[in-house]
C-alpha cells in the first residue's frame, strides 16, 4: 500500500503542509506541536541534509510510538554535531557507544526491554553511511538475521563527512573525495545496503530522501507498525562533501531521484512492493552539475564517457525498479 497522494489541493502532498487538508492527513513536520527531536543549536553545517533527515525520521517515529522511543546512535556527523560534551540537541532518550556497534547496542536495548516485559517502548538505531555500510555492517547483518525488534535508519550522505570526506562503501562512482582524488571513486565498487537488507528477508526495507517528506514519514510510520528487524535508507545530501550550495540540499536530493540514480522503493520480506515513480525525468547531468565533487567531469573537454556510464546506471535503476511508466 503506497503513500497516499492527495490530489488537486494546490500543492497536493508535495509540500510539507497543506492548509486545505484535514488535520489527521497532515505531515508530522507541519504540526505546530511537532517534537523537534533534534532541536536548535546543533552544530551541523548550514543546509545539512542529515540534520533534516534525522529530525524528519525521529519525529515521525516519536509520533508513531506515542513518544515511547529510545534512539541508539552510531559515531559520525550526526552524533558529533548533536552531542558535543556536555550538551545535547536530542529531545528523545538517546545513547551512543561506538562507531561500529550501533545495531548491536540497539539489539541489546530491545533485548533489555523484552527482559523487563516492556512492550510499548520501541527502539530505533541510526547512523551515517560510514557507521552502517562499512564499520557497523557485521552488527547490522546480525541484527537483521536475528530479526531483532529494531528499526535501523541509515542517513546516507555517501562518504565519511565527519572526518573530512573520505570514501565509504556508499560513495558513488566518479565522485571526488579526499581519498579518491580526480578521477574520483572507481566504478564497480561499493555496496547497495538496501538490497543486502532485502536479502535477509526482513519484514521491511525502504529507501527515502529528504526531498520527499510525505513519503519519508509514511515509511517510518509503516515501519513502526511492524515488529522485527526493519531498515530505512535515507539519502541526505551533504553540502560540504558534495560541494553544493547550502540552499541546494533538497534540490539535489530531488534530482537524485528524478534522474533515477537513487531509486525510492519499499520492500517487505525481500520483495519490492512499491516504487516512487519519477515525476519529471531529468538527465544525470542536471544532478551532477550541481555538485563540486563531479566538477572534473565537466571540464574542457567534458568526460562524456564517464557521464554516459553514470547515465547507464541511472537507466538500469529505472529499468530494474520500473521507475518510469
Amino acid at each position: 500500500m503506497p503513500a497516499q497522494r492527495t490530489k488537486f489541493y494546490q500543492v497536493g502532498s508535495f509540500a510539507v503542509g497543506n492548509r486545505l487538508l484535514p488535520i489527521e492527513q497532515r505531515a508530522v513536520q507541519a504540526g505546530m506541536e511537532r517534537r523537534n527531536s533534534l532541536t536548535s543549536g546543533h552544530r551541523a553545517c548550514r543546509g545539512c541534509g542529515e540534520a533534516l533527515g534525522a529530525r524528519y525520521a525521529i519525529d515521525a517515529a516519536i509520533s508513531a510510538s506515542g513518544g515511547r522511543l529510545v534512539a541508539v546512535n552510531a559515531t559520525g556527523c550526526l552524533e558529533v554535531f548533536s552531542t558535543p560534551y556536555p550538551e545535547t540537541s536530542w529531545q528523545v532518550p538517546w545513547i551512543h557507544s561506538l562507531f561500529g556497534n550501533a545495531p548491536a547496542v540497539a539489539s541489546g536495548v530491545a533485548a533489555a526491554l523484552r527482559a523487563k516485559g516492556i512492550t510499548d517502548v520501541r527502539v530505533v538505531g541510526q547512523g551515517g553511511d560510514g557507521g552502517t555500510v562499512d564499520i557497523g555492517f557485521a552488527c547490522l547483518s546480525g541484527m537483521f538475521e536475528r530479526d531483532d525488534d529494531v528499526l535501523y535508519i541509515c542517513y546516507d550522505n555517501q562518504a565519511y563527512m565527519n572526518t573530512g570526506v573520505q570514501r565509504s562503501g556508499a560513495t558513488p562512482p566518479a565522485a571526488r573525495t579526499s581519498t579518491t582524488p580526480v578521477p574520483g571513486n572507481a566504478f564497480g565498487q561499493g555496496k547497495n545496503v538496501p538490497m543486502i537488507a532485502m536479502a535477509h528477508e526482513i519484514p521491511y526495507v525502504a529507501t527515502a530522501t529528504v526531498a520527499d517528506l510525505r513519503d519519508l514519514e509514511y515509511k517510518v510510520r509503516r515501519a513502526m507498525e511492524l515488529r522485527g528487524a526493519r531498515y530505512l535508507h535515507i539519502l541526505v545530501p551533504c553540502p560540504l562533501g558534495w560541494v553544493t550550495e547550502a540552499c541546494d540540499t533538497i534540490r539535489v536530493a530531488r534530482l537524485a531521484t528524478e534522474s533515477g540514480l537513487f531509486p525510492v522503493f519499499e520492500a517487505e520480506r525481500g520483495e519490492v512492493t512499491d516504487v516512487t515513480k519519477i515525476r519529471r525525468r531529468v538527465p544525470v547531468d542536471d544532478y551532477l552539475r550541481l555538485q563540486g565533487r563531479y566538477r572534473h567531469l565537466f571540464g574542457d573537454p567534458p568526460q562524456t564517457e564517464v557521464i554516459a556510464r553514470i547515465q547507464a546506471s541511472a537507466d538500469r535503476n529505472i529499468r530494474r525498479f520500473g521507475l518510469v511508466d
Partner: protein
Amino acid sequence: MDDKPFAITLGVGSSLANKTGAWRTERPVYLDRLPPCNNACPAGENIQQWLSLAEEPSYEAAWRQVMRDNPFPAIMGRVCYRPCETACNRGKLDEAVGVNSVERFLGDEAIRNGWTMPVEAPPSGKRVLVVGAGPAGLSAAYHLTLLGHRVTVADSGSAAGGMMRFGIPRYRLPREILDAEIGRITAMGVTLELNRTITDLPAAMRGYDAAFLAVGAHIGKRAYIPAGDSARILDAVSVLRGMEGDAGAPLLGRRVVVYGGGNTAMDAARTAKRLGAADAVVVYRRTRDRMPAHDVEVTEAAEEGVRMKWLSTIAHADGGRITIEKMRLDETGFPQPTGEYEELAADSVVLALGQEADLTLLSGLPGIEVADGVVKVGPNMMTGCPGVFAGGDMVPAERTVTVAVGHGKKAARHIDAWLRGGAYEPPPRHGLADFDLLNTWYYSDAPATVRPKLDVARRISTFDEVEGGLEESTALFEARRCLSCGNCFECDNCYGVCPDNAIVKLGPGLRFAVDLDFCKGCGLCVAECPAGAIEMVPEVT
C-alpha cells in the same frame, strides 16, 4: 568557567544555549510580491486573495473580496477579456488558472443567494452626480456610495447598463444577470435617473459637490463608401442597440456584410447570424493578427459560421451586392490597394469601424481639453475643470467593460479624497512575482477545466447564452490551481525544510517568523518556497 572540566565551556544541558545564528551572513526575509494576475487586472482586483478564499472554500468571503474592487463579478465572468489569464504564471506550467470561470461562479452564487453589500461608512453629506449608467458610471456610483457619499446617476437610455446592455449581445451577457448586478447597486441607495440627457452640465451640477462623467462612445464612425441609392448601409452600434429596443430587430436581410475588425464587428456578424442571415461576412482591410478583436470573439464567430475576408476594403456598395478591393500590407504593415476587385452579394452592409463619444455635454465647461475625440484626464481621472472627473470610453484607454469598471473605482477614490480636501495616495506597489521566482515542483499537476459551450446549432438559432458556468466542484478545483505567486499561502515548506528549526509557525493565517538566534542562513527555506515569498538579505555587520 573555573568549575568546568578542562576545555569545556558550557554546562550540561540543551544545545539551545548554543546560538548558531551567529554563523549567519545572510538572513531570510518574508515578503509579498505582486502576482501577475493582480498586476494585469484593469479593475485592480486582488485576484489571488479571492481565489485563496474560494479554495477553502468560503465563497461568500471570496465574493466580498471581489466586491471590494468590482461590483460586477457575474458580468465580468462573462464579458471580461481576461488579461489576468494572459498574465497567469500557471500558463507557463500547463494552462492558466481559469480566473474568469471562478469569478463567474462567485457572481452567480451571489445572485442565487441574494448576497448584498452593506454601506458601513458614515454619511459624508456630500453629493456626487454621475453622468452615464454604464460600467464606469455604475462602478463609480457603487464605490462612492460605499465611501459614504450620496450619488445620483443620470442616463439618457431607457435602461441602465450602457454598452453592457446596448452593445453586448445577450448571448454573451444574459439580461437577468445584468439587471441583478445593477439592481444590487441601486438597492444600496444609488439614485438612478433614466431617460435624462444632460446637455448643460454646470446647470445639472447645482446642488452637487462633484461630477463623474462616463457617457461612453455610442456614435458609430461612418466611412465614406461610394454607394448606389438602393444600398442598405447601417452601423453596428445602431444594430446592436436596436436588439434591445421595443422596435423589433433591425432588418438586415439574408446576406450581411460587416465592415470592420473589432469586437463590435464580431458581435454584429454573430447577431446577424442569429437573426436568420444565411451568410454573414466580415470584411477587414488587414490580416487576422492585426485585428483589434479578441481571439475568443473571432474564434466563436468562426465556429458559428461567420466568414472572414481579410485584406479587403469595400470599394462600392449597391442594392444586393458590393465590390471589394483586395489589399496588401506594405512593409510598415499598412494596407495598400492592389487594383484587384471582386463582387460579393450583400443585402446590407453594417459598418463597425469604431465609435466616437458624444461630448456635447462638455460645452460651456472651462478648462476641458479634448484630443482625438476623447477627454483628457489627469492621473487622478480629473478633467481640466476642478471637481469634474471622467472615465470609461470617453477618455483615452482601451475600451472594455473591465477597464471602465477600473476607471470608476479609481475616480471614486480620487473624488472621495477631493471631497474631503485631500489627495488620494495609492499604496506602493510590490515588486512583480515572476515565474522564475517560483519553485513549481510543489504544485500538483492539474489540467485546466473548460467551461461548457452551447452547441453551434443552438447558438445560431437563438440568443441563449453561449458559454455555461462551472459546477461548484469544478470551480473549487479551478481555484485550487492557483500558485499563489509571490505570497505565502502557508504550505509549511519553510517550517519543514529548516534543518535548524529556526522557522516559527505562528498558526493558521498568521504565517511564519524566523528565529534569528538559530537561523544559520542556509537559504533552504527560500529555495524550497513554492511561491517565491521569501528572499535572502545580506546581514549588516
